[in-house]
């Protein structure tokens, strides 16, 4: 990693500027609010992809259960919004007014105790970060302390995602079941379904995303980030250099979980509901492909990957629904076989040298500058 300048190299600051301009100016100015809302939805997946870059790209830990954390974050937010939507007045036709409608349909007659704290917005915001983190900590502590890794970790996270999905669907009186938690209307009295709200939510989302990107970069640039790479390549050497490797893995797993959960919460706000179909195996693996397409080592790549794959999905499924799965399948295979470093790899190998020939001043040398110690 080049360590020139604060957080990023000069080139990467330029990339950040391009990204910020795209997300905050170009897209809002050029598409209508409907499409912008869609882009906002894609960007929520980019949070998960960012987490995966840290976890998988840098740390070498592949989780096939990131949907768990995306879902948990989304559910925490959805629970708050649902309670706000379930005022006694709005639900007076129910046999028990004041509780969410799906509880009433399932003969639940009082709000379960673990729903109670979600009346508080502060608690909800904390829960969005803490619930997934604690869950990740439990899984991570159990697995990493026992040195479960690689393929085993991937399969076990997948199994956990499956369990959680069955559980959410089975406990529909408390979770809304397979329908999820739907019909969310307002956030602290502010109608989130209006166009203006969608615009504001989009900007909050994009801003948070850039904030998380900076945070992730700060982690990568710290000694922690270099240790992650060291652990990925030579775990034993790190261990015998006096580091408790499992703690580092647990932390990065929790961090990736928390980042995914922010995405989930923003998803709920922008889409207006949360359902178990975002918790399971299929979405979890799709999120891995976003990171893979963008380039598993590149934070910028993760965002572009999430945007492009989803935009392609929408376009393809509108015009050639039959072809979509072929395209998606082909994408998986192509990225793994031909472009293991994804879009970011392509940019680095082809675009940058090309640009560097024409704009040497802007980028310095075409290749990344050789790493050097800060003086």
């Amino acid at each position: 990693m080049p360590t020139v300048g604060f957080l990023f190299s000069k080139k990467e600051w330029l990339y950040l500027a391009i990204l910020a301009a795209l997300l905050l100016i170009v897209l809002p100015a050029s598409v209508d609010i409907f499409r912008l809302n869609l882009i906002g939805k894609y960007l929520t997946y980019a949070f998960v992809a960012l987490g995966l870059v840290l976890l998988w790209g840098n740390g070498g830990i592949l989780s096939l259960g990131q949907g768990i954390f995306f879902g948990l974050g989304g559910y925490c937010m959805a629970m708050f919004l649902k309670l706000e939507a379930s005022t006694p007045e709005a639900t007076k036709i129910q046999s028990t007014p004041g509780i969410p409608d799906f509880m009433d349909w399932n003969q639940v007659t009082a709000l379960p105790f673990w729903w109670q704290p979600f009346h508080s917005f502060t608690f909800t915001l904390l829960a969005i970060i803490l619930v997934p983190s604690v869950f990740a900590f439990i899984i991570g502590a159990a697995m990493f302390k026992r040195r479960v890794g690689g393929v085993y970790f991937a399969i076990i996270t997948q199994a956990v995602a499956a369990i959680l999905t069955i559980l959410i669907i089975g406990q529909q009186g408390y979770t809304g079941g397979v329908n999820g938690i739907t019909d969310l209307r307002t956030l602290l009295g502010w109608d989130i379904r209006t166009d203006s709200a969608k615009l504001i939510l989009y900007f909050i989302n994009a801003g948070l995303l850039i904030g998380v990107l900076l945070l992730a970069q700060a982690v990568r640039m710290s000694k922690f980030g270099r240790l992650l790479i060291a652990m990925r390549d030579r775990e034993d050497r790190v261990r015998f250099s006096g580091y408790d490797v499992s703690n580092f893995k647990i932390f990065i797993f929790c961090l990736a979980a928390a980042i995914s959960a922010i995405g989930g919460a923003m998803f709920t706000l922008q889409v207006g509901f949360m359902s178990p179909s975002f918790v399971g195996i299929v979405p979890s693996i799709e999120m891995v492909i976003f990171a893979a397409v963008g380039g598993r080592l590149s934070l910028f790549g993760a965002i572009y990957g999430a945007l492009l794959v989803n935009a392609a999905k929408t376009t393809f499924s509108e015009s050639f629904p039959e072809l979509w799965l072929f395209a998606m399948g082909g994408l998986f295979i192509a990225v793994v076989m031909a472009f293991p470093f994804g879009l970011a790899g392509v940019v680095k190998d082809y675009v940058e040298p090309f640009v560097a020939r024409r704009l040497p001043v802007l980028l310095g040398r075409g290749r990344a500058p050789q790493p050097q110690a800060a003086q």
Partner: protein
Amino acid sequence: MIGDYSYSEFFSILAMQGFAGLILFSVFVLMALGLAIIFGQMGVINMAHGEFMILGAYVTYLCSVVVTDYVPFLFPVYFFVAMALAFAASFGLGVLVEWALIRHLYRRPLDTLLATWGLSLALQQLYRSVFGAREVGVTLPDWMMGSISLGDAIEIPINGLFVMGLTMIIAAAVYFIMFRSSWGKRVRAVVQNRVMAGAVGINTKQVDRMTFGLGCGIAGIAGSAFTMIGSTGPTAGQLYIVDTFLVVVFGGAGSLIGTIASAFTISQAQSTLEFFLSGSMAKVLTLLTVVGILMLRPQGLFSLNIRR
């Protein structure tokens, strides 16, 4: 539970419940054997394993249609032909996939996982385009349906017996191939020391390809057998994949005996729990227990304590 029933009723239920567990066990073994060979012996994660099974199921379906239309008198025995063809088709596709994809990825197990997931998506769409989105029903010869009555209350489903018998034959065949044949010796040699095996004249590439093909072929037979108890649709393969992986991992990768033992444990646990709890909770509890035990004993049940 016993309260309302006579002891004889209770015991016949116990017997049938044990048998239900055995059928589930056979299903798990059939699903997992192919995967265990591929994953355990080659370290390759084949997420498209379910789709190889479904290929076998579709081949069986085609056979049933063709036989009914052209040679109806063969119908009672078509199933055996169908299984052979299912094996051949899945084996062939497996060899092709190994050649096109897997052989480039032996050093990157996590990447095989992603590539084969992509493959599974493409195969699903292929099935949908060819056979339609609806599930297809495979008509079975009459002798395979129905049950044998043992006493007044105990009824043993014939297709269950058939699946169990098939499982035993295939398990025995796999055991023979892997541990008694010279080919199996070569496979194990490659697993233990690829370079050395190559140096003593074993064609390691061919061994890889055949091993992968064999694993997929067994999946094909499994798919063929499953038409007797389950459904055949483009996405049906997805239903099995997590369970199958858990069976293999729980047994301890690389140990075929472990795979069988783990299939037995999980199936008995699940079918017993299903009897006392609702199906969903039984499933959750079984999976949770397996994951919990794996956290305590990550190498699986039957893995040896070897030096790292």
